[in-house]
């Protein structure tokens, strides 16, 4: 009996496999189409001919097609990530949990009530009452407005440092004399330190930034910013705090040479803390408006024309696909529904995934209103490199190295550059083998003028990305080790 049952069971398994295969072959779409979740084109049914069969191209393409056409592929890949996440913390899970834990301990420390979860707190009455400047109806077009660049509202140390661009000489290695911090300012003026970056860590980062600068042409610049995550913003909005601040720029700027500018996101965003929805509740990322403020500050410093926030065309998204919280958790959060709308700039640029230095495959545009926005905008797995051809003819190229925060920032830089290449060095995003070369080689290949480092406080300055990968990936020629994907 038992043997019979096992036989039936294995028979059913086999039948299920056959059924799946038949369903894919008969009913799955045969043409290439974009994947919202992965932000790439899914494989089409491969061309079938004698040449393709002889070379094996059909067989390779067929396996890709089966995988990409698998029913409920997005959900299943997400499920596999969740299963992996059950047994080990992925980077983002870890960061999110760490932030939640930190926020909770902060809440306890400040004797907050248990009914008010710190990450989802109601903004103060005046902030809630202030209407959001985000336009409900998207502006029709993107119009570059060079003459209308507004004055900077917060002077950045970068401005004080040296806006005049000159070639960066090899800077002598300087050591930071103290740690740097990011803190929240209590209403009584005292500090509640949230992040501490060791002097040793900052001393390691500085020469690497100079090394990046040395790869650029004479007038090239390196612009660096570490952006606070939403937890801090929502804590500032409680009655316990009045401000936030950081001295990373003060400690790091003296350590770097000319042409490297350290920005303080806390300073730049401060004027808007209580007047604008800088971050969405229920997620650690920033809103487009906050990213625009950052982009504006940098663009002005570089002397590029600034396109005002309202001049971009937007669409509104209601689902936040990049959230670390489950839909159930989001439902249970006591946040204003209004705060769950996400303006996404529509940026009609040509977009490619780059592999092995020069291999391009067309991808969905950075933002196109054909697709659901924020999943592509923030959550997409753009590995290992992306290339954006903007259509603006400024004669310059930028490289943006960031974590998920840079996705909201990048659209606002498209008016300043002919093309932008971007990458995310975190280990679950960056694949050095498929990259097929070092960052230095990418800088040379694409004739990069300016390099941006834009990561959030989850990607800690003390951590692996800054302390190891930034230099390792700059210099290691993975093409020499693994090949550049020929054949």
């Amino acid at each position: 009996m038992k043997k019979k049952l096992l036989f039936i069971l294995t028979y059913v398994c086999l039948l299920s496999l056959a059924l799946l295969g038949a369903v894919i072959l008969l009913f799955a779409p045969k043409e290439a189409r974009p994947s919202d979740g992965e932000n790439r084109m899914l494989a089409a049914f491969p061309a079938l001919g004698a040449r393709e069969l002889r070379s094996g191209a059909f067989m390779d393409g067929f396996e890709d097609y089966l995988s990409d056409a698998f029913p409920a592929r997005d959900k299943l890949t997400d499920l596999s990530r969740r299963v992996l996440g059950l047994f080990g913390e992925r980077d983002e899970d870890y960061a999110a949990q760490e932030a939640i834990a930190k926020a909770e301990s902060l809440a306890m420390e400040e004797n907050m009530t248990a009914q008010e979860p710190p990450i989802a707190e109601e903004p103060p009455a005046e902030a809630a009452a202030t209407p959001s400047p985000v336009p409900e109806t998207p502006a029709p077009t993107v119009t570059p407005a060079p003459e209308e660049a507004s004055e900077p509202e917060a002077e950045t140390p970068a401005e004080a440092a040296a806006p005049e661009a000159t070639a960066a000489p090899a800077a002598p290695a300087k050591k930071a004399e103290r740690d740097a911090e990011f803190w929240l300012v209590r209403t009584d003026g005292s500090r509640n330190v949230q992040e501490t970056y060791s002097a040793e860590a900052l001393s390691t980062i500085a020469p690497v930034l100079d090394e990046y600068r040395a790869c650029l042409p004479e007038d090239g610049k390196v612009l660096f910013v570490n952006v606070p995550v939403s937890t801090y913003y929502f804590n500032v909005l409680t009655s316990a705090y009045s401000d936030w601040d950081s001295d990373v720029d003060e400690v790091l700027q003296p350590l770097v040479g000319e042409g490297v500018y350290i920005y303080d996101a806390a300073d730049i965003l401060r004027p808007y803390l209580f007047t604008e929805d800088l971050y969405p509740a229920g997620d650690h990322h920033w809103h487009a408006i906050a990213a625009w403020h950052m982009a504006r500050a940098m663009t002005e410093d570089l002397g590029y024309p600034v396109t005002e926030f309202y001049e971009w065309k937007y669409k509104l998204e209601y689902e936040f696909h990049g959230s670390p919280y489950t839909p159930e958790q989001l439902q249970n959060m006591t946040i204003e529904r209004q705060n769950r709308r996400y303006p996404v700039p529509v940026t009609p640029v040509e977009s490619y995934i780059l592999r092995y230095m020069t291999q391009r495959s067309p991808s969905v545009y950075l933002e196109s209103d054909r697709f659901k926005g924020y999943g592509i905008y923030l959550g997409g797995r753009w590995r290992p490199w992306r290339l954006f051809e903007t259509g603006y003819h400024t004669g310059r190229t930028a490289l943006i190295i960031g974590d998920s925060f840079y996705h909201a920032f990048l659209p606002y830089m498209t008016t300043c550059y002919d093309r932008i290449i971007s990458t995310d060095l975190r280990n679950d995003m960056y694949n050095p083998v498929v990259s097929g070369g070092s960052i230095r080689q990418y800088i040379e290949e694409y004739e990069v003028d300016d390099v941006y480092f834009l990561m959030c406080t989850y990607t800690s300055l003390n951590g692996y990305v800054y302390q190891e990968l930034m230099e390792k990936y700059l210099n290691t020629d993975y093409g020499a080790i693994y090949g550049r994907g020929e054949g």
Partner: protein
Amino acid sequence: MVFSSLTFLLLFLPVLLLLYFLRPGWRWRNGVLVAASLLFYGWGEPVWILAMVFSTAVNYLCALLMDRSRSRAVRKLCLALGVIISLGFLFYFKYAAFFGGILVSLTGLPLQVPSPRLPIGISFYTFQVLTYTVDVYRKKADVQRSFFRLLLYVSCFPQLIAGPIVQYSDVAGALTRRRVRPKDFSEGLQRFIRGLGKKVLLANICGAALSATAQAGTGADMSLLGAWLSALLYTLQIYFDFSAYSDMAIGLGRVLGFTYKENFNYPYTAVSVTDFWRRWHISLSSFFRDYVYIPLGGNRRGGLCTARNMLIVWMLTGLWHGASWNFILWGLYYGLLLLIERFVLSRWLEALPRALRHVLTMLAVIVGWVIFYYVDLPAVGEHLLAMIGLRVSPGGGLVRLPLLDAAAQRVLREYGFFPALAFLLSLPLRPWLQSLSERFAFTERLSYFLGAILTPALLGLSLIFLIGQSYNPFIYFRF
């Protein structure tokens, strides 16, 4: 095609089994199997089918001539012809570039060194077809008069690409008469699914964890524990990768009516290096024992000859894995270890507690895998040095490494569970459960229940994980 591809799982396997069992009788089934095997082999690189068919044809003709001739000289000539052509073929594709390069660098001659692409599975099917020719020469096996059936033996897809190396005499009978009972079908498929789970859920994840560690020779700074962690991860990955393939091959063989010998027997429980090689890649060890070591004289001509034979066999074993110095070094490393174990340390080792012997063996095995992993020898040295907490500074001196690097920490945090699970599953839990079930009725029910639940669960999970993995070749494919 690989067993863990969607093409194989969703289309090839179901269609093959449907056609295979459509009609009874071994002629129909042999026909289906040869056609399927050639499609399986040619999928991706159809041109190499010709190489395999040519190698089979040469050995088929040599064996026929051998069988018809009564002259010993002619028989020897036929054997030599079959062996030389088969090995020549293997040498050209696998070793010509390596040895040609050495020749050019030694002599400085302006030679054009050929570097052809390696036909997949050539090392495996060459050795298989040689077992046929040699067995016919030794009169251990009857000559196969049907080329078609010999082609079926050589090309039979379950063991074609990555073994186990099936000796002709072991399956000669099944080429003309074989029976598949429902029990063979279900147990064979269950074993295949277990193998698939091992490959996708353990080997691939250990591989992903390994690639996230700092690697010697990539410019990344390693740490003492990081170096050990990556060595351990590779130790687990290669075992689960290769034994998974063997499980799948043996399981599929059983579904199709063939009985293949086991290729692994819990090698990481070995208590000596000799014991390890009785448990690891058993079909390769058996091949070298039966077709190289014993013909060279084995251990019957005194200690010196035994030592020489062992070193030859182990150097060839290393070379079989690839045309690279690290494989030769790896083979010689094991040759020397086995010699030392046999002639110097045998009594001392036997006196040690079993647990200590096991630890020492695993130490030797892990060091062996480090040699095996890196194709460039300086990286091997760098990694081995890191395993004792040192590295060579740019000035040439030795400097201490940190205890734990950030990459290793991250790997432990993100993947720690899977290597731990893999380690547990490398222990003989199944025989232990079986022995329990013989003693207690409830454990028998439990084991049956587990089998019934785990089989579909493993298949489902493996499929889910496969969808997200675009590239998951078996390590032993490159050999």
